[in-house]
């Protein structure tokens, strides 16, 4: 199952050249770019681990690509994404966020039903990946 998230979720995965172009756009707007990673694919997991601090005064996308590649090397079986944060007053939010690496195999989700009081049924999503402990959730490619 191909998990989608973020700004370009409807597009096929970006090449490095395309990532560079997007980062260039973010830098040109003065947004702080950061790299994050996780191996918990749950849609409600939006706070990923930070790969270093956000990068504020970079002039060239090469700097961000450097960090992306270092993160990919350290976590080859994790999801990695690039965020761009717009710090302007009245916006102060993530302006751009897209996945730049995903595990080779994504097992997907199962729907769990729970019988509750008064014959109510509660539903919850269960990612198969989280059955294994953190750090070992995706087999090495």
């Amino acid at each position: 199952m191909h998990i989608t998230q973020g700004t370009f979720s409807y597009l096929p995965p970006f090449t490095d050249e395309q990532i560079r172009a997007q980062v260039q756009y973010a830098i040109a707007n003065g947004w702080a770019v950061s790299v994050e990673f996780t191996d918990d694919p749950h849609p409600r997991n939006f706070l990923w681990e930070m790969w270093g601090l956000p990068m504020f005064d970079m002039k060239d996308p090469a700097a961000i690509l450097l960090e992306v590649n270092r993160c990919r090397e350290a976590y080859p079986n994790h999801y990695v994404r690039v965020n761009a944060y717009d710090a302007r007053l009245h916006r102060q939010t993530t302006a751009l966020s897209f996945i730049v690496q995903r595990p080779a195999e994504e097992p997907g989700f199962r729907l769990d039903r729970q019988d509750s009081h008064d014959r109510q049924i509660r539903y919850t999503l269960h990612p198969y990946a989280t059955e294994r402990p953190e750090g070992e959730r995706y087999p090495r490619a």
Partner: protein
Amino acid sequence: MADNGSHAFNMVPGKSAPPGAGAPADDTPVDDKRPENRGGARDSERARNTDADSAEAGTSTLEAMPEISDAGGVDVAELVRETRVFDVLHELDTELVGLEPVKTRIREIASLLIVDMLRRKAGLESDRPTLHMSFTGSPGTGKTTVAMRMATILHRLGYLAKGHLVAVTRDDLVGQYIGHTAPKTREVLKRAMGGVLFIDEAYYLYRQENERDYGQESIEILLQVMENQRQDVVVVLAGYKDRMETFFQSNPGMGSRIAHHIDFPNYTLDELMAIAKLMLKEQRYELSPEAESALHDLIDIRMRRPRFANARSVRNALERARLRQAGRLVSGESGFLSKADLMRIDEEDIRKSSLFNPETEPALAPAADS
């Protein structure tokens, strides 16, 4: 090949833009901080977009050119003009006095890059040339200034994406405790990406007497990036000649990754006078004829003093002269000052320097530059 290149340049001056039409306003300042675009976001956005456009200038010119084959050639002069690299070379000639070996070397590098561009266009694959450099020379010989111009030239030729200069010293690269150095060095390198990283007094990075000095770690990271991301950053190491040589001897990896060793000669007395006049002209001052000969004597004396720092000492001497001129004008006898009075530096402003009466001056006083 260098021959070809210099031919091209020799032909072009007549055809290219007139001397006055130097580089337009997109000269990149040293390590300027990214402006916080809080209020005028739109303006700065536009400014950046034009910046990005000019970043592409080199490559788009290349794209627009016809195919190069054995049959159809390309007009080198045209290309040189379009990349506007000649404007920078011309500025280099007019604004920097002396430094002939340096200028020749920069011309050669620029020609190499142009030929490299043409070769790639013609489908002749070759590695991107390594452009890491070492600038050696005494203080005040223009190493930083030339590095800034170099960044602009490389940007115009499409070799560097941004063409800014980040000037650092050991303090900016080397950390205070274990695990501090690597992120610090990497941070500086990332900031320099797309431009030139200028490491002043680079030999301080390596401390021979201390094996566990963190400088070594910094050097290793620098080497790694210099090798793997040659297309993203150009590293310039600067410092005194003899100490740089020792540095390269003890760090052969660093020495072998630097293709261009450029030596900056000391200025002669006449060149220093020319520099002084250039500086005064920029600041809208004038020397009276007597003051000029006084300045000549002053520089002559200063050159033989210890800690003489070439153009920097000249600038300091002129600053002191300006101070004395201001003092003279304010406390002055004539109550009425004309524009010419405000611009003119007189003989006494320079002759009053402590350098002219050695008795009153302690040998190594901080005022030795006056």
